[in-house]
């Protein structure tokens, strides 16, 4: 009759910034596949805390997404999602 603690599949791993450290991705406004991971389904830029992105990198990422939007590589809003 031991009280079973609810498990959530082991300890949660802490997220780390994908743009810093040894195997960091480079931020490139032409890499739409990479940028697409940091916008919501409707096309909004995800908050930095969602992906634990360092502030400087988030600014870089934001600029890249806006550039990609301007060049019609990414939508400003996606309404059919």
């Amino acid at each position, binding site marked *: 009759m031991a009280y079973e603690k609810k498990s959530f599949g082991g300890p949660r791993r802490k997220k780390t910034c994908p743009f810093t450290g040894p195997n960091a991705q480079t931020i490139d*406004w*032409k890499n739409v*596949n990479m940028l697409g991971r940091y916008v*919501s389904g409707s096309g909004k830029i995800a908050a930095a805390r969602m992906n634990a992105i360092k502030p400087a990198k988030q600014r870089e990422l934001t600029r890249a997404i806006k550039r990609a939007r301007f060049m019609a*590589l990414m939508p*400003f809003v996606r309404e059919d999602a």
Partner: protein
Amino acid sequence: MANYETVFIGRQDLSEAQVKDITDNISKYVTTSKGKVNKTENWGLRTLAYRINKNRKGHYVLVEFSCETDKIAELERQLRLNEDVLRYVTVRLEEFATEQSAILNASSSDDRPHYKKDSGYRPRSNDKDREAA
């Protein structure tokens, strides 16, 4: 001398030859103003993410070059006057990319969604954020 990349979108009804003309004009301008073209990439006719001046598609071309900073304004002025160019952007680079642009091998990318296209599964709007985590 600084390194730059310029990407422009040509109107959808341009022929390949016309697109090449615009690209050559850029290259010519860069070389005559004592710059150097590093490489050009033709991304082909791509579907735009939204309509621009009633165009649904556009010819994308990337030009990497190095030249003096004060020559950029004239280059952009020429692109602005050209009615066959829908959009352009010039970005200063720390250094030129060693590989071709990611957009050219996007279809063979390994970060495709985890669901099959015809499975009827529709990702919720925050699924993407979770994937990235």
